[in-house]
């Protein structure tokens, strides 16, 4: 036990940009614990940190790339996945991880998310879902539960949210999981698994946002949210994804939902490359 936590701490120390501390996240926020899971996951043997690239968009979670000592890119709002797509296709040896928030990945970047899943590009997306736009002060997001209070839905949110695991799975992802910021062990394992899994992997991390979302929805302390996750989370691996919607104060179904084998975009591109070269050769011979 002591031994394990030493290794874990070493991994955190080694890949954290300590010269950038203190970080900007509020006390009780779930992004830090999620980043901690990621740091511990990359300390495992299977991952070569020199070949690992981290891409974030904009927002609170978008700042993760700035604190982690890897080749890391803080890009434009919503476009972390396209940027990561270019990185991966131009150098297939890279292990590419996108770490961003729900507003970034699902609202402004929603189109890129479903297309990346459809392509089954070999990439891991960690989506910290705190049900609102934290950086700008707590506005409604496409993940805010119906009836949730935010600074732009004072009378209750009037739009239903996305069911992210269902959306991403239907779009074609190879790996889909959801955990909360309380499920540290499971989350670390899921991130490690997703990073070595070929194809598109998506992990939704339900996260406290005590200062804005929490304050307005009866979870004013990070601990309140953690208690809620403890009491209302239901682990259901392989769940029917039609049933994993999140309602205000309702149960949160967590678990590894999808883990399947599909040809990846890289596999398909290799075939195209072989065909193109063969055709070019045949054409060249024809000319002689």
């Amino acid at each position, binding site marked *: 036990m002591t031994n394990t936590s030493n290794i874990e701490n070493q991994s955190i120390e080694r890949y954290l940009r300590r010269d950038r501390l203190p970080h900007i996240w509020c006390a009780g926020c779930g992004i830090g614990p999620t980043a901690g899971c990621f740091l511990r996951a990359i300390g495992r043997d299977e991952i070569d940190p020199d*070949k690992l690239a981290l891409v974030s968009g904009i927002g609170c979670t978008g700042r993760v790339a700035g604190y982690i000592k890897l080749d890391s*890119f803080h890009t434009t709002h*919503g*476009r972390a996945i*396209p*940027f990561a797509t*270019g990185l991966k*296709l131009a150098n297939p040896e890279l292990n590419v991880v996108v770490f961003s928030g729900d507003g970034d990945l699902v609202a402004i970047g929603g189109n890129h998310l479903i297309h990346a899943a459809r392509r089954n590009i070999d990439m891991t997306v960690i989506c910290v879902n705190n049900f609102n736009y934290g950086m700008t002060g707590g506005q409604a997001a496409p993940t805010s539960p119906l009836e949730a209070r935010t600074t732009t839905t004072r009378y209750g949110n009037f739009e239903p949210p996305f069911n992210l695991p269902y959306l991403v799975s239907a779009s074609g992802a190879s790996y889909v999981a959801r955990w909360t910021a309380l499920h540290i062990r499971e989350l670390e394992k899921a991130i490690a698994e997703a990073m070595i899994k070929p194809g598109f992997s998506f992990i939704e991390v339900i996260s406290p946002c005590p200062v804005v979302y929490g304050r307005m929805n009866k979870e004013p302390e990070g601990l309140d949210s953690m208690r809620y996750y403890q009491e209302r989370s239901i682990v259901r691996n392989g769940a029917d994804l039609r049933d994993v919607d999140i309602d205000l104060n309702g149960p949160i179904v967590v678990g590894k939902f999808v883990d399947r084998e599909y040809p990846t975009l890289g596999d398909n591109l290799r075939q195209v490359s072989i065909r193109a070269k063969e055709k070019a050769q045949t054409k060249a011979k024809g000319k002689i």
Partner: protein
Amino acid sequence: MSGDVACAEGAISAGCRFFAGYPITPATEVAERMSTRLPQVGGVYIQMEDELASMGAVLGASWAGVKAMTATSGPGFSLMMENLGLGVMLETPCVLVDIQRAAPSTGLPTMVGQGDMMQARWGSHGSYEIIALVPSSPQHIFDLTITAFNLSEKYRVPVLIMADEVVGHMSEKVVIPYVAPESLLNRQRPKVRPGKYLPYEVDDGLVPPMAVAGEGYHFHVTGLTHDERGYPVMTAEAQDRLVRRLVDKIRLNRKDIIQYKEVQVEDADIVVCAYGISARIAQFAVKMARDEGIRAGLLQLVTVWPFAEERIRELSSQARAFVVPEINYGQIVREVERCAGGDAMTILVPHMGGGVHSPAVILEAIREAAQ
């Protein structure tokens, strides 16, 4: 071959091995050619879900160490402005081709325009400098695409090729020469080992060496205002330091960047200043004017941004007037007027798009100026 196809071939010759794009008339043929050619030469072609993503993927590919390009037209060019700004801020070498059509909005998708010239300069938010080249024939777009890659690698800035629909779709003879590898420029690589490398530290000049992902440098780059370490710094001082360098690395090197062609300007009273397809028509008008005894000449802008200020200023002391035909209602003419500074008259010959000027219209403006 067509200008669009010549552009793709120029990119292949320049060492471009990544293309991300989205179909749009009249630039689609660039993408089609790249989709056939890139897999043959070990490159990657990908059709993205929109132009926002296309430009994002191009930046990502460049940061993986590969020369990358996209091609679009007006509506897509507007969408690319977002990540063009990121490209400027991260100092990412790449090439963006705009085959201009008549606009605003959807405009005349299959017909010519030159209305994106100011968008090329100012389209993304903030204060920055960009390089934009304007080809006037299929051969020219082939050659300029190679130049564009070289400039983007040298100065670590996105380079725009501001072609127009006529140049993109016209077919002419194109000579594809052997391009010696040593004539192709590549971004400066870090000279220090990982751990010592700062992504935005300049040793000589204003362009920092560039590490790419996967080499163990573990660098960070951000669209936020940043310091030499690549770390965000939220102060006016950091902003001043960064923006000055981003602008100055282009501005102070303009003599190396700016290209133009001149025809009979040595003794010209009237200088026609034109670019793209309009320059070829203008050349014809200049010849007609000379036949009438008017001392006319042509200044063809090849680099439009940064602008050839010094040359216009010099010519304004010699010439009586500048005649500026453009397929828009007056964009580059404003720059000419500014640089002429009242020393020479400036006459706009606008065409709203959907067609090109008749030489007679330009000749008429030359005649008026000569009176």
